[in-house]
């Protein structure tokens, strides 16, 4: 951007035709150009290194005789997908994932938005320590508490239940969700709420009628982010669920390395694609949202 500005000043001021002033090819500009070429080349090399494992996924899923190497299929086929799309292999684990992660996400978002409201709006000597504790627990390695969580769940009979797993997943995501939601809520101007209060709304009404609609983009981000994190979580369901019919896709994927010796790599790749697709789509959705949508300026006049 700055190169255009600097080059623009080099152009003659008399150059006032309708076209943009022609850039004089000075030394500096060509150096910029060289820099850009070098940066492009460097990035492409890095991107190539990152893309190779992903290419394996795509190629192997379309190849009936897939092995461990990246190789474009000579005879692309959807056989792997049709072999995988059965109740036992795909639909039950995906449904389990959806139940566990969907339920946990709902719980997280509900609790987080409720908690974020007072934390964002009222002052108390407890709110700062509370927020610091929340921020502290966002960083704790959840992996480390899984052994005691398992022991605890055995004691209170929650092991191998889907709701127990959902409760724990929800809680593990909750500190970050509260933190994010509080920050998003800080961005909603209090003036709007005060107007609602003056009109006689109570806090519940102002939350539901004023904050939630304005928080739309923020809540979407928290919801989708929590869901992506839970969908990809392997360790929690791996520890807390035992029965094969309750396993979510994250854990059932190990059945491809089953007791039958050879691994069906094509089917593994096809299943991985199906399992990864929802989070990829959801990520694309929020990354668009993150771009715009966060301007609440239109809601406040003068």
């Amino acid at each position, binding site marked *: 951007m700055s190169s255009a500005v600097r080059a623009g000043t080099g152009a003659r001021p008399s150059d006032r035709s309708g076209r943009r002033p022609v850039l004089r090819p000075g030394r500096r500009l060509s150096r910029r150009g060289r820099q850009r070429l070098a940066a492009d080349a460097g990035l492409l090399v890095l991107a190539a290194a990152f893309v190779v*494992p992903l290419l394996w996924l795509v190629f192997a899923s379309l190849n009936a005789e897939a092995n461990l190497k990246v190789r474009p299929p000579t005879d692309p086929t959807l056989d792997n997908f049709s072999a995988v799309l059965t109740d036992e292999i795909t639909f039950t684990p995906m449904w389990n994932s959806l139940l566990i992660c969907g339920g946990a996400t709902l719980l997280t978002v509900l609790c987080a938005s409720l*908690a974020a409201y007072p934390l964002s709006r009222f002052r108390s000597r407890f709110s700062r320590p*509370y927020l*610091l504790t929340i921020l502290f627990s966002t960083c704790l390695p959840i992996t480390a508490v899984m052994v*005691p969580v398992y022991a*605890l769940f055995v004691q209170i009979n929650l092991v191998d239940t889907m709701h127990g797993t959902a409760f724990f997943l929800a809680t593990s995501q909750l500190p970050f969700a509260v933190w994010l939601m509080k920050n998003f809520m800080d961005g909603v101007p209090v003036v709007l709420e005060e107007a609602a209060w*003056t009109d006689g709304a109570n*806090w519940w009404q102002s939350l539901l009628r004023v904050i939630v609609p304005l928080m739309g983009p923020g809540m979407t981000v928290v919801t989708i982010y929590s869901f992506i994190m839970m969908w990809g*979580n392997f360790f929690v369901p791996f520890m807390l669920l035992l029965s094969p019919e309750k396993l979510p896709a994250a854990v059932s994927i190990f059945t491809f390395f089953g007791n039958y010796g050879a691994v069906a790599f094509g089917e593994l790749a096809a299943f991985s694609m199906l399992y990864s697709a929802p989070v*990829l789509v959801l990520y694309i959705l929020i990354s668009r949202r993150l771009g715009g949508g966060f301007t609440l300026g239109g809601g406040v006049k003068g």
Partner: protein
Amino acid sequence: MSTVKVTAPPERREAPGSERARRRANGGRYWRWLPVAPATALMLLFLAGPIGYCAYLAFTDMQLTGQATSSFVGLENFRRAFQDSDFLNAVVLTLVFTLLSSIVGQNTLGLLLAGLMQRASKAVRSVTGAVVICAWVVPEIVAGFLLYTFFHKEGTLNSILDWLHLPSQNWLYTLPILAVSFANIWRGTAFSMLIYSAALSEIPTEVSESAQVDGANGIKRIWYITLPMIRRSIGTNLMLNTLQTLSVFGLIWAMTRGGPGNRSTTLPVFMYDQAFNKALIGYGTAVALLLLVVGALFSLVYLRLMREEV
């Protein structure tokens, strides 16, 4: 809004009417904090509870094999850990894994990517961003399998090396910790890249340009201008990466299961192995507690970095 008396103290900006409305709207002084209750209850039950239980279990000899009672053994588990060569091996491997993949790998590569992206053309920038972020969004276990095939003896890396006429290796056997570290770099770099891209775009171009006018070359500009200006982001990123890397389990489990032998057994894998395969819940929990304490120390440093934002 214009009912503020002239005699009111200047820091009081709100009109009294609005204050009254606020109090009426919010119910009592304490009732208005009620919405925090569900989240707090969940976190006390399922987060603080297990952490407390962890601190208790670590001092007992609880086992998984259905023995009726477990007794208090004091520091026995910890004494045992520090004499256990497998535990010390896991500590060293965790340090190597964290240093290599998080502090050196993800951090540097993320900064490099962000720096290059600032200078690159738009098309290349978005393609690279998409690929790197895709590696990040893919579920952990899928990433594990992808890199398993990549580093496998008959996998892609070796066929690339063959094609370049370089000696191939059985990566997952000879250098498993290197393979899983690279896997973690592959998976985690996007986060650093996003943080650094945001940080770099906030540096005003004037600063860098005036340094250029004063005759600073590229390396000097990076060292004296860019890095000091993004130092807060560097701190945040290092902390979060390290904490994330300390708790990596699925990636290693999918690639090597901690093997061959125990040559890629980091602390989380060791903890799992002791608690479930060897049925020593008490001992596994002691290891978990140590991991938790290390994580807590890093979190405290992170809190200090973030202090101004609460």
